[in-house]
């Protein structure tokens, strides 16, 4: 489950019958750098099915892949992203100094 910020909603005029009544939201996934900087976002936007009704600007957790359609089990529905939770409080404290690979540097040889 990745984190995403709600940027909008999508409404379909014609849709597959199985999609009837499914709300769709536009999500901007959150990258580690932008989350650490306090400005969530930065990923490639995607559309997710939603049953929770988050507002624009709210952060949500969304599942991806086949299990995103599990809430409709045993019915099959062509959904591959699903809004699982609305984030209420997020405490993010990544290590300040990222572990760097300890690779021995080779000296440049003058020609």
């Amino acid at each position: 489950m990745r984190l995403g910020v709600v940027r909008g909603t999508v409404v379909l005029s014609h849709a597959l019958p199985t999609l009837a009544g499914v709300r769709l939201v536009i999500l901007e996934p959150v990258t580690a750098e932008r989350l650490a900087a306090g400005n969530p976002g930065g990923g490639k936007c995607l559309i997710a099915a939603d049953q929770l009704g988050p507002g624009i600007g709210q952060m949500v957790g969304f599942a991806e892949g086949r299990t995103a359609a599990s809430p409709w089990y045993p019915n099959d529905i062509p959904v591959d992203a699903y809004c699982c939770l609305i984030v209420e409080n997020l405490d993010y404290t990544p290590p300040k100094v990222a572990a760097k690979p300890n690779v021995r540097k080779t000296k440049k040889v003058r020609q």
Partner: protein
Amino acid sequence: MYLARIDGTLTSTIKHETLGGFRFLIAQRLEGDGSGSGEPQVVIDMIGARVGSLVLVTTDNEAVRKASKNTTPVRLAVMGIVDSVYPEPGAAA
């Protein structure tokens, strides 16, 4: 399954009905050199990992389905807290 470092915690009131009672953690998947790879992921924790823990994360939703219902959309769960890895992530190759 992959190794991840726990970078944070998350609380949520409005969530899918199958997710009640679970702890949510923010996990960062690690490369072999100890650097983070990809975007932070929300994982379900049933065994008590803490911020800073090195954990093994499963991407199969069987673990969550067993603890919840068949209709749960979440796949990622902490399988275990790592005791030791050889060679350590970030150690010289």
